């Protein structure tokens, strides 16, 4: 794979596994009532964040969604702070005020997950203006789902980004369902990527379960954006393994469909096998990596459980003037 070193590929594998293990754990914690509110697992979609974030630099921005754990992990998010936030603790990314849908990190250039479908897309326009104005060749990676692509802000934002040639990479994670609405029934064109024509930007479709395809598409888009060629729209065809949230049995979709994706298109299994087959890693190395990641996820749970609850007095003091 041109542009991908052995180290890159191992990093992608680690990111895939880290997201998978983290999400599996959060579902368990949700089912035992330790995490409450909303939780939107990224299982099945790990390849998109893993490939995309590997293709941009540390200093580039990402804009995330309500299903944002994978994006934050792939951009380097701290598992302890994430888990603490999910448990509503004071040591969490948002001091327990934000929960799953609002994780942000200025240092890692994570401009925030978002509880509003499509809400981050216009924000990417502003971050794009910043990158253009400062002239340092930075880019913005804006994640959103197929549901958001039908929202008005998608159209406003892509038009404006194109008019001003902003360095934004729009990456649609088409996981086929917006809660229960299938994108085949909600998107009027064949593919979301077709809409790029209307905004005079490249529109690329990739297999969203293959991190290397995503890496390549995002690398190309970032290269163009850094040179001042403006935004791109990438549609990653992926699949959400679970329901919209852990309590959603996903009765609106066929069992055979879910079974197909889980058995044939699992990004973690497939990429692991691929790297073993191509002798990038050994089976033993994968087991070691997986164990280390599992341990760090367990560690994050311990960290979160041992962390104090947010201080009510402090909260009341901090918000009394708003």
């Amino acid at each position: 794979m041109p542009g991908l070193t052995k180290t890159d590929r191992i990093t992608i594998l680690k990111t895939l596994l880290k997201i998978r293990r983290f999400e599996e754990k959060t579902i368990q914690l949700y089912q035992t009532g330790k995490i409450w509110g909303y939780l939107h697992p990224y299982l099945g979609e790990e390849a998109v964040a893993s490939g995309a974030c590997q293709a941009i630099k540390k200093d580039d921005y990402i804009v995330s969604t309500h299903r944002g754990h994978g994006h934050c992990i792939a951009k380097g998010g701290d598992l302890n702070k994430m888990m603490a936030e999910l448990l509503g603790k004071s040591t969490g990314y948002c001091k327990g005020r934000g929960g799953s849908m609002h994780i942000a990190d200025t240092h890692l250039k994570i401009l925030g997950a978002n509880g509003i479908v499509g809400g981050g897309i216009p924000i990417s326009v502003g971050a794009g203006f910043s990158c253009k104005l400062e002239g340092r060749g930075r880019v913005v990676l804006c994640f959103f789902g197929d549901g958001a692509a039908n929202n008005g802000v998608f159209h406003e934002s892509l038009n404006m980004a194109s008019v001003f040639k902003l360095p934004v990479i729009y990456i649609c994670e088409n996981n086929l369902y917006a809660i229960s609405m299938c994108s085949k029934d909600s998107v009027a064109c064949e593919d979301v990527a077709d809409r790029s024509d209307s905004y005079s930007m490249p529109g690329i479709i990739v297999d969203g379960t293959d991190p290397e395809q995503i890496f390549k598409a995002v690398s190309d888009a970032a290269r163009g954006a850094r040179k001042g060629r403006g935004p791109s729209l990438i549609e990653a065809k992926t699949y959400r393994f679970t329901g919209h949230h852990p309590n959603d049995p996903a009765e609106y979709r066929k069992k055979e469909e879910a079974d197909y994706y889980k058995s044939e298109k699992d990004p973690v299994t497939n990429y692991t096998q691929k790297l073993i087959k191509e002798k990038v890693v050994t089976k033993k190395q994968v087991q070691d990596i997986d164990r280390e990641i599992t341990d760090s996820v367990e560690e994050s749970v311990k960290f979160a459980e041992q962390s104090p609850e947010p201080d009510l007095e402090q909260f009341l003091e901090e918000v009394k003037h708003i």
Partner: protein
Amino acid sequence: MAEIEYREALRQAIIEEMDRDPKVFLIGEDIGVYGGAFRVYKGLLDKYGPDRVINTPISEAAILGAGVGAALTGYRPISEIMFIDFATLAMDQIVNQAAKIRYMTGDSLNVPLVIRTQGGAGRGVAAQHSQSLEAWFYHVPGLKVVMPSTAYDAKGLLKTAIRDDNPTMFIEQKMIYLNQGEVPAEEYLIPFGSADIKREGTDITIFAYSAMVFEALKAAEELEKEGISCEVFDPRTLVPLDEQALIESVKKTNRLVIVSEACQRGSVASDICARVVDSAFDWLDAPIKVVAGLNTPIPYNSTLEQASIPHQADIVEAVRKLI
């Protein structure tokens, strides 16, 4: 002190802040060669170029989102919504994004954004271009709401808004852009939450903001002839509100009329009323009266339009009832 127009005062504030801080930029519809619908930005495109005076398509949500995104990434944008009525198209970005991000991320991100807009009736532009929607934003924690009446206040408050690290709704009124007012040559800033007594008085406090300050001042003048001394209290910023100064004024005069161009139902005026009753009931010698707009969409016909919003005569009548 030089007398300048309200809109010129805004323009001066913007120029001074753009000269001082290269991170300040403007983004909105028709703000380029056209200079803004009310010409506040006249000449700024030539002065600062298209990277700092960004003339956009008609896309309110994206204009606001661009403001939020740029603010999150180190800039201090002024996003303009041409008429406050059009803020409806950008409510997610204002209410769910700008107002929430700092608090819901545990202070890890700041949104130093100014949302400049104007509202109010009086120009015959009917129901979709004449609303007074400040109560919507007043209601949302996380937003500051500034409504200056004079040129002096407009300049000093806009400079403060631009330097503030949180989102500010800066709401002007379309009928007062050409009002002249004294503005000093040297730099000054007006802190948020500091009310201004526009006229001292002893018998009754008239709380009024934005264009209604001038109706209140005219009413006070008329009432003075009858021997009634009115104190005209201009909060200048609704959020934060200088509640202490208002309570002091009420304690001095023992009577209160609240004037607002917006309709009364669910209004800022109603909330001010409740707050004064809560804090200063024992000092009140009469019930509080609210003089507000009718609960109606603003009509086009001039007679009907004028009947929909308060005027000097309505304030005079309200005061007479309380004295």
